[in-house]
């Protein structure tokens, strides 16, 4: 059983508090990812769970035991670091066996575990090699292997893919996800890469300034961000933010933007806009909700046509990112590769407003969450 509870966890370095009253429940065998910009406290939180940082206040529970004062080695956890932290003078085999060696595990058991793990990670041919000869991806596998042989209940991974090139990162993402399913252990993973977070996590914790902003599944975070920061952080290219003035229109609402009336079909949440009538709110529009033609399956009354000028067209292969200027706002539209628009062209884009994201301009909180 490796459920983990963080209760009012704080971390201060002198007068500077970097983690503020964090409450978090991590389920047994869950793959949880802490994500946020640099300096948001995600690595510090992970290091507190690992026992590498002293907890200033609050409680950390692993299973049924409060482990604030339990040494790192007795927490049944294994950590994988960004820089791999392999011993350069040891072979891959010895690197992997080192933890078991320290625990004085029988050498037959150590040997069996190292070889079994090496087989899983497909690094059997590297066992007698030194880290110096290995590529980044191979080193990362060894670092994972070193954690795996200890058979811990919890894996802590601190930006393990950051040093790899983009292609290898993609491969290793899939490998780690498969590994999680195979090992049936709790994974807590820190990254600033939201693609990693979206593709691998059961749940994502978005942090900023030492606070947890939102904890949810990747899809829920994407569909229902709690505030403008989360909305902007999750999704690439990031969500477009337009300032619109809320106005009644018949039974519903519209947002006035650059002389246009953008429909805001809110359904049963329509009442939430009452306090904002006549005020400016922020409308979040995902780049994939801007189309060059009327999309199939979208109600025409939930769309609006934006006239825009293309500042830059970025062909991505499977899609084109149009950096556009509409009503004095810079936006990004993700359109099909068949789009022929070039830099400087004027285009008409259909904005699909079927599921709008609306944020309070002052508090930056979602109005509809």
């Amino acid at each position, binding site marked *: 059983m490796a459920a983990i509870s963080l209760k009012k966890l704080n971390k201060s370095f002198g007068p500077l508090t970097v983690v503020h009253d964090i409450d978090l429940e991590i389920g047994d065998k869950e793959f949880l990812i802490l994500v946020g910009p640099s300096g948001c406290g995600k690595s510090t939180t992970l290091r507190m769970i690992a026992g590498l940082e002293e907890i200033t206040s609050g409680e950390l529970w692993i299973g049924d035991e409060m482990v604030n004062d339990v040494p790192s080695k007795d927490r049944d956890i294994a950590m994988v670091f960004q820089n791999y932290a392999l011993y350069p003078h040891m072979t891959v*085999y010895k690197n992997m066996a080192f933890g078991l060696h320290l625990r004085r595990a029988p050498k037959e058991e150590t040997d069996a575990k190292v070889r079994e793990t090496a087989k899983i990670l*497909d690094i059997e*041919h*590297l066992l007698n090699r030194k880290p110096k000869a290995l*590529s980044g991806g191979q*080193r990362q596998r060894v670092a994972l292997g070193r954690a795996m042989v200890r058979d811990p209940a919890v894996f802590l991974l601190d930006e393990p893919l950051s040093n790899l090139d983009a292609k290898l990162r993609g491969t290793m993402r899939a490998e780690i996800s498969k590994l999680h399913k195979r090992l049936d252990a709790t994974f807590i993973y820190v990254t600033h890469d939201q693609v990693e977070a979206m593709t691998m996590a059961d749940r994502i914790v978005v942090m900023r300034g030492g606070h947890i902003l939102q904890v949810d599944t990747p899809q829920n975070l994407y569909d229902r961000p709690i505030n403008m920061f989360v909305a902007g952080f999750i999704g690439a290219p990031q969500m477009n933010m337009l300032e619109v003035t809320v106005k009644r229109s018949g039974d519903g609402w519209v947002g006035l933007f650059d002389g246009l009336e953008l429909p805001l079909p809110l359904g049963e949440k329509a009442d939430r806009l009452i306090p904002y009538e006549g005020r400016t709110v922020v409308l979040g529009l995902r780049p994939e909700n801007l189309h060059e033609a009327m999309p199939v399956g979208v109600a025409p009354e939930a769309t609006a046509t934006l006239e825009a000028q293309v500042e830059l067209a970025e062909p991505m292969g499977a899609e084109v990112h149009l950096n556009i200027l509409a009503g004095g706002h810079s936006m990004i539209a993700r359109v099909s590769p068949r789009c022929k628009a070039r830099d400087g062209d004027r285009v008409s884009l259909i904005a699909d407003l079927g599921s709008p994201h609306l944020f309070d301009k002052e508090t930056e909180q979602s109005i509809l969450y």
Partner: protein
Amino acid sequence: MKWLTESFTREGPGIPKDEPKKTGLALFAQILRREWWELFKLNLAIIVFSLPLITIPATLAGAMRICQLMVEDENIYLMREFTGAFRRLFWRASLCGLAFGAVLAIAGYGVFVYAQLVPQALPYALALALAVVTSLFLWMVAAHFFLLMVRAPALSTATLLRLSALAALYRPLPALGALAFIAALWLAHILFYPASVFMPVAFNFSLGTLALVFATWRASEFALSREQQSA
């Protein structure tokens, strides 16, 4: 110190899984590059463990065990493996080593005697040639015997002797090459003394053992496979 850290942590080129395995001297060179530090430590271990003299055969068995792992490209815990083989094979290696020592000494003495007689009567050249060939064959058998003893300690001494003779006949040239290499190492030490004083301390013993194991490896494989088939 920065350059040292960077040299330690710099990413390597990576090792492809399906990289074709090197063979022959290229493989030997690869093992040397990979294991040079272990060889240095092994050399020191050989010197220390051989100091009581009576332990020389068991030390050779221990060294051969390490070199076996090097050739197999297996992980090495040097002292654990070395002392393990040393202890496990102490009595057998000592007794067989003593016997081989005696036989090789007799064969060597035979070569010495016939070499003295050749200038007096040319027909002794035939006897000398026979003595040299016998002596070399015995050296090869001894080398194969020790490797086979380390690789298959469960086999009886008689079986090991039979397999050693078979292995020596199967691939005599590599074994002879290894013996020549060892002789060359010591000759270089003698010729370049005192500049070469570091050679025995640094690598002569371990490198010689590795050369012997490397050269007799395939023949010992052959002999062991034959033994398995007949069993």
